[in-house]
């Protein structure tokens, strides 16, 4: 009896511990390959060179163009998702009645459940042709339409996390504002949003992290040309797209070219890891505040 209990607890512990193994695995895989990479390419070159042509004869290993591509698509996505998502959160929390909310929230969640290849398809076959009619000279692969579509995808992430944050603000604060004759708008922006600001910040950071790591939309619609530019109208390449591109080309194991995807991978990982930890930390802090 006691023994089975112990064994079961051990098994359960093991399944939990596997998650640690996964993290260790990720870090080990990324590190071991990139250590080999950085023994041939200096870290300084990696972060300062302005060109990325590791597969060509004249090899240049500056990740800045990939960072620029990632930054550009992410910035466009957030520029779309943040105002819309936050407005939705406030609207649903402050104005909409419960039945409307109950219908709309799951509908919005659909946006987040659609596979990202599908978004890529839209960006390429619907949004880009449409934008090309408005913006002559817009390339067929471009950061603009990939970023916008990615923005649509992460709207529900911002709206529902922000809504959660606003709902977590004690109801008594809202009542206090109403009780003083504040309008809903005044209540929302004067009291609720400031009180929920850390939660909203968390939602934004997580959305950024999501956009930075997003792969298929940019791989399909943003292009595959590493280019140090902030021009949203031309093809760019993100870190994720580069990994896909090399994976499709099947660069042989063990070569320097092969290791570039791990060097890019670890850079991507560090970015998202930092963002996630910042958000985790902020969240812990504000949760403590309310408990």
């Amino acid at each position, binding site marked *: 009896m006691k023994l089975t209990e112990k064994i079961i607890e051990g098994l359960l512990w093991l399944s939990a511990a596997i998650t640690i193994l996964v993290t260790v695995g990720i870090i080990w895989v990324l590190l071991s390959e990139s250590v080999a990479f950085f023994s041939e390419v200096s870290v300084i070159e990696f972060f300062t060179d302005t060109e990325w042509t590791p597969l060509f004869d004249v090899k240049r290993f500056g990740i800045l163009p990939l960072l620029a591509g990632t930054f550009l698509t992410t910035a466009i996505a957030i520029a779309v998702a943040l105002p819309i998502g936050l407005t939705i959160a406030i609207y649903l929390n402050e104005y909409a009645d419960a039945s409307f909310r109950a219908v709309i929230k799951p509908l919005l969640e659909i946006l987040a459940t659609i596979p990202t290849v599908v978004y890529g398809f839209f960006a390429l076959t619907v949004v880009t042709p449409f934008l090309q009619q408005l913006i002559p000279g817009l390339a067929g692969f471009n950061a603009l339409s990939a970023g916008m579509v990615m923005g649509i995808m992460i709207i529900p992430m911002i709206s529902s996390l922000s809504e959660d944050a606003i709902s977590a603000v004690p109801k008594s604060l809202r009542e*206090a504002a*109403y009780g*003083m004759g*504040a309008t809903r708008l005044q209540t929302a922006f*004067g*009291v609720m949003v*400031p*009180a929920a600001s850390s939660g909203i910040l968390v939602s934004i950071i997580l959305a950024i992290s999501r956009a930075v790591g997003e792969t298929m939309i940019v791989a399909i619609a943003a292009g595959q040309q590493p280019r140090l530019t902030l021009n949203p109208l031309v093809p760019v390449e993100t870190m994720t797209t580069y990994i896909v591109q090399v994976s499709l080309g099947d660069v042989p194991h063990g070569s320097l070219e092969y290791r570039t995807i791990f060097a890019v991978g670890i850079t991507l990982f560090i970015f998202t890891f930092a963002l996630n930890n910042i958000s985790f930390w902020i969240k812990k802090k504000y949760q403590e505040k309310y408990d």
Partner: protein
Amino acid sequence: MSKKKNKLEAIDLNAYYGDFLALKNINVSMEENLVTAFIGPSGCGKSTFLRTLNRMNDYVDGFRVQGQILLDEQDIYRKEVQVDELRKQVGMVFQKPNPFPKTIYENVIYGLKIQGISDKTLLQETAEKTLRQTTLWDEVKDKLHKSALALSGGQQQRLCIARALAISPSVVLMDEPTSALDPISTAKIEELIYELKKNYTIIIVTHNMQQAARVSDHTAFFYMGELVEFAKTKTLFTSPKETRTQNYITGRFG
């Protein structure tokens, strides 16, 4: 019952949450410059009634009222009434102190600021006046620009009262304003209520019968959505007419 003017009056009031009838045909009047207490067991509708008096339940899904609430003889549920205007006349203090996570000063002047008043001197004068009224001034005058959340519970509650007074209401509603406080803070607030009734009409919900006895002039006893008995406080506690009232005040239930 008395000769004062009726400040607030409920006429044939029913209130629903969806299909649930939370208040059943309430008729009662609250007189000017008196303290009226609502007592009754948990869930009997005290808070619901209090909140109909400044339409705080307007945004609660499925909530609706039938009948009338008259403030200075005018129905507050008429179409043309603007709730924000109404709430400037009928202030409210809640069970748990709920200062905004801002400075003490910002808390007090919040109601004025959202009305668009930005005259510094006026704001400062009002702040000082209401903080003095609530006997907080000496305690906070050196930390007006510190966070209100650093105050003790009792101070926070007095701050909330000050905040409500700053917009010069004529009625102040209080929903169990001391139930989250220690005995000393409670005593301070009770004193304050006594002071305030010179200038305001006060309506207070309380769980604590001793408190009702101490601070109120009139008491209304609610039970399961009904107003069972309404009388001068002394009368109600010493010679209740209804057995349900009798049972409640002697602790038979609740």
